[in-house]
């Protein structure tokens, strides 16, 4: 099965700064992957390398044949009508599903004759999405598609996106610095920070293998089945750890709880940069 997206030690440098380095990912087709990280982490760089806007400094990137892209800010020609935008899509693309694009926009109540500049933010995002989907891509990349949308518009945008995934078996990678909206719609997650990939994999697996451990204060020593401690907080008599586990925690001293995706992402992003480079299994700090 060809991966939807595969990168091997992908990197991009500007002058002396690495915007992305040592990025090796494999994303299977038919999944919705969240690319999460703070601003400047390298999310846009990665997406631009995949679309071909940037050439890699190191490494390789391979994708499925047809890639669709919605850039940051969902750029559109504001003086064009919605109709014009669709005509542009038809004329510039070898493969174009005009009927489906029109049907989708009609279903959303977006008038074809209105200039794009006079649509609401949510409607503009939907037009940009319709344009990208009109190409019938096998892989769709979206750079911060929800950033400037109000909650209702975000919900509608994700609804349209999920419907397309259900109908067409599309693979999706969408970046965001806000994790809250993505937990329902993504089944894969990649965490990026300071130009490096911290974590990547199936969302259910990731949530299953990370636990919050609470117990009496302890600063050294190993805990059976803990592969790595991501975050440790020590109060006077208590320690709280967020750890990646390889199996059940049987030590009765520790109370084990699940971690939310948000909590997990925050913990990873809080890792100091020195820890990012270490690949070895770590014990309690």
């Amino acid at each position, binding site marked *: 099965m060809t991966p939807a997206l595969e990168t091997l030690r992908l990197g991009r440098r*500007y002058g002396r700064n690495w915007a992305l380095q040592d990025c090796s990912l494999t994303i299977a087709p038919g999944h919705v992957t969240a690319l999460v990280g703070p601003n400047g982490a390298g999310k846009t760089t990665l997406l631009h390398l995949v679309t071909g*806007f940037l050439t890699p400094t190191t490494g390789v990137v391979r994708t499925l044949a047809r890639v669709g892209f919605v*850039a*940051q800010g969902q*750029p559109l*020609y504001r003086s064009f009508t919605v109709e014009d935008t669709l005509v542009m*899509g038809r004329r*510039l693309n070898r493969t174009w599903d005009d009927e489906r694009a029109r049907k989708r926009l009609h279903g959303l109540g977006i008038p074809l004759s209105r200039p794009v500049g006079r649509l609401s933010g949510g409607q503009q995002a939907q037009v940009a999405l319709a344009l990208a989907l009109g190409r019938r891509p096998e892989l769709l990349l979206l750079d911060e598609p929800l950033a400037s949308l109000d909650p209702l518009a975000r919900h509608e945008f994700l609804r349209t996106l999920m419907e397309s995934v259900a109908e067409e078996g599309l693979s999706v990678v969408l970046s965001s610095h806000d994790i809250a909206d993505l937990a329902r719609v993504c089944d894969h997650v990649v965490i990026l920070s300071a130009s490096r990939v911290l974590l990547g994999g199936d969302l259910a697996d990731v949530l299953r293998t990370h636990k919050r451990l609470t117990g009496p204060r302890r600063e050294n020593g190993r805990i059976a089945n803990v592969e790595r401690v991501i975050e440790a907080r020590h109060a006077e008599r208590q320690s709280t750890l967020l750890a990646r586990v390889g199996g059940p925690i049987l030590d009765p001293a520790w109370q084990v709880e699940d971690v939310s995706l948000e909590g997990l992402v925050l913990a990873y992003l809080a890792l100091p940069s020195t820890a990012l480079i270490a690949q070895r299994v770590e014990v309690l700090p």
Partner: protein
Amino acid sequence: MIWLTWRQHRAETLVLGCILLTAVAGLVLVGLAMSHTFDQLGLGTCTRPASGSCAEASSSFDRQFAPTTLNVTVFLTLLPGVVGMFVGAPMVAREVDRRTHWLVWSQDVSRGRWLLVKSAGLLLLGVSAVGIFTVTLTWTLGTVFRLGTFSRLEPFFFDVQGVVPVAAAVFALTLGMAAGTLTRRTLPAMLIVIVLFGVVRFTVAQARFHYPPDPVTVAVPLSAGPMIPAGAWEIGFPVLLDPQANRVETRSPCAVPGPVQPACAGYRFIVAYQPADRFWRFQAIESGIYVVLAALLLALTAYWVRRLTV
């Protein structure tokens, strides 16, 4: 891609078209008026230099049409720069500024084809607009040259005749495209176009004085008639020599135009000029300069566009 280029620049094409239409209509009216007045004043029968009633008719004609002639010639001198500024500069700059280049390049069109079709379309627009205006102006100014007092090679008129305005427009457009690709913002690009276009245009106009072949230099004995042939472009100032070939001050009584004094027999003027028939050769040289510059700028634009990472 052709459709997209048209649709993107539809508005400015229509605006330019309207301006052009009005301007051409105006020029035609002026041209007809000039021709009519010329015949009315009987200027066709006058010989050079104008004297007596001819001088009066000539001044009358000048008074009537000199301001208009000035205005339209200035307009066409500036038009290529303006086109370069408003049509060429935003071509890449506005797309990058608004991030729509990511929109277009996400579709099935390469950067190369995008640039090729867009620049070809805009060059066609600029060339057509400036070309039509030049042709109309040339026709309008035809009457002025029948006066015999002006040369088509003169700086003021040379800039707005023949193919030079079109070549200048091509240069200005490609300058705008290159500036826009470099700055990636429309306003700075427009500024660069005004400044650089003005500087280059001025420099080239100065260089015109040195276009090969060298000016014709002749010794003209004092007489009441014209010193240079009709339509020729005088270079520099005439030098007065006495019979011994010494330079004479221009304050000398012999330098005064009019009937020849007997004391000034043997005096002659050394005068240099470019004959009228060199007009097209000079047009070719100057247009060539602009076209070569334009080609370099276009190549630079293509190179920068390929490397654009923003």
